[in-house]
């Protein structure tokens, strides 16, 4: 069963080509990662898949449905976390969740959501008073989970988080996946992709330059070149592009 499929996506902003003929499929129940450096076109791609951006060319299907004509149904079935959203500062955690929950025709209760993201003790705190990115990001995930979605879109979910918050979020996403959910996430962290993703597509300059299971991709490099070195997705990227992921 196909969760997400896109074919020959293209999107340009003026002279800048953000996405350049990108295609891949995400099976249902799978965690799929778009891996690549900043500026590779990951966010543009995921926003096209989320139905927030219109591609210049190419086709998108979510659960076999196109955005055109099925937006209302699809919105009820997906959960979205965007990279730069700041939720309203002066609403409490509970009020924010109540607002998002009201948009969905089915889903979890507020109490369940608070428990899943471990924010029960912050129920009556203003969003502005949440400490650090970790709690805010967990609230953003709770908002995405409000409608008990079949598919979760996460755009760089752990960027800027401390190691403990990252692991907490990974646990959350693994749990969602174990319950049969499908995840499409973007990241530029190798370890994140290796930990969470069943399959990844490595994206550079708006194209998929490699696709497969993290282990396969690493194995395709042949024997690790350095004995003490285990071999990572970063090596795959370097081998394919001659550049490191954090370089521009």
């Amino acid at each position, binding site marked *: 069963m196909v969760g997400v499929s896109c074919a020959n996506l293209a999107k340009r902003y003026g002279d800048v080509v953000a996405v350049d003929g990108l295609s891949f499929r995400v099976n249902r129940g799978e965690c799929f990662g778009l891996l690549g450096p900043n500026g590779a076109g990951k966010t543009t791609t995921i926003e096209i898949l*989320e*139905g*927030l951006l219109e591609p210049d060319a190419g086709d998108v299907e979510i659960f076999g449905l196109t955005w055109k004509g099925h937006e*209302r149904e699809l*919105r*009820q079935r997906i959960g*979205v976390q*965007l990279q*730069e*959203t*700041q*939720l*309203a500062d*002066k*609403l409490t955690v509970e*009020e924010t969740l*109540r*607002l*998002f*929950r*009201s*948009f*969905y*025709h*089915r*889903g*979890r*209760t*507020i109490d369940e959501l608070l428990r899943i993201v471990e924010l029960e003790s912050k129920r009556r705190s*203003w969003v502005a008073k949440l400490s650090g990115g970790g709690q805010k990001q967990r609230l953003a995930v709770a*908002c995405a989970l*409000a*409608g008990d979605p079949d598919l979760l879109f996460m755009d760089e979910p752990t960027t800027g988080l401390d190691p403990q918050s990252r692991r907490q979020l990974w646990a959350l996403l693994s749990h969602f996946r174990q319950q049969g959910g499908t995840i499409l996430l973007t990241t530029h962290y190798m370890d994140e992709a290796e930990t969470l993703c069943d399959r990844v597509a490595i994206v550079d300059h708006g194209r998929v330059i490699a696709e497969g299971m993290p282990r396969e991709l690493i194995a395709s490099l042949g024997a690790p070149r350095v004995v003490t070195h285990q071999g990572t997705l970063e090596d795959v990227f370097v081998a394919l592009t001659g550049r490191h992921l954090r370089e521009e």
Partner: protein
Amino acid sequence: MAAPVKESIDRGGASHPLIELSLARLREFAREPEAVFWAFIFPMLMSVTMALAFPGGGGKPALVGIEPGPRAAAVRETLAHAPGVAVRDIRPGDQARALREGEVHLLVVPTEPPAYRFDPSRDESRVARLMVDDALKRAAGRGDPWSAREEPLQVAGSRYVDWLIPGIVGLTIMGTSMWGIGFAIVQARMRKLLKRLVASPMRKSEYLLAQVAWRMVLLPPEAGVPLVFGVFVLGMPVRGSLLSLSVVCLAGALAFGSLGLLLASRARTFEAISGLMNLSMVPMWILSGVFFSSSNFPQAMQPAIQALPLTALNNALRSIVLEGAPLGSVVRELAVLGAWGVGGFALALRLFRWR
């Protein structure tokens, strides 16, 4: 006949999105002390200023200056006894300044016969000229063919301040609706909250509707403060029904709410929204009969002026407050407000930028 199958909706304890969206804005507003302060203090300040400017009682006297000259003393003596005229001496080099700054409305040059210096485009100056001319000619021995019986009227409801207060109510409804809605939307857009909301199944029309709807809670105090002040401090009569008044205020708030949505539909920064707000509101401050009647403007401009939402709101408020008009006689004004409300909303929904 089978009943239509209605899918039951489980909102997990949350209310209808329209209610949750409205509540969210109301909570944000209530938790912003500065916003609350200005929403209620602004109309209060306007009202106090009005009370200071119009303490009631008779009209102001005509201010008349007398230049030095051989007959200056005689002219001063005559005018000092004339009712409604206040006299003062003006030094020769000081005349232009005194006239310009309104220290005097008219200058008398005490020659034989006297000369009057004044600006004929100023109403006070023309009145002063008539009063001075009358007093001096009488003193010179002019006889009157007859004296008219005078019936002075000082009826509450016919004073300038009574005319002004409904205009202030209209102005308050316009200002608070538009600023309150415009800024909140631009802020949500800057924080990418709008983008997150459209990624959810929220209906766009419900979001926009909620932005206007929550403001209705604030309407009674906002419109009420200047009205209550007018009635209890300045003695303004309210001749129409409170229900008609409420309906008109509501129609006004909805019209300006939609206009606020429309102006905020594409603005990305506070500077942009401030500019658009001022651009649309300042002309109405002047044209729509807040401080002086819009009938002062040329006939050719009247169709446009009458189509402005603030003109419609002010006219309807004045008809109800001052003339006790029923709703049936302000249908035209309600239609203008309704058109702005519905048209503005529909256009805002089309143009609105969610990113």
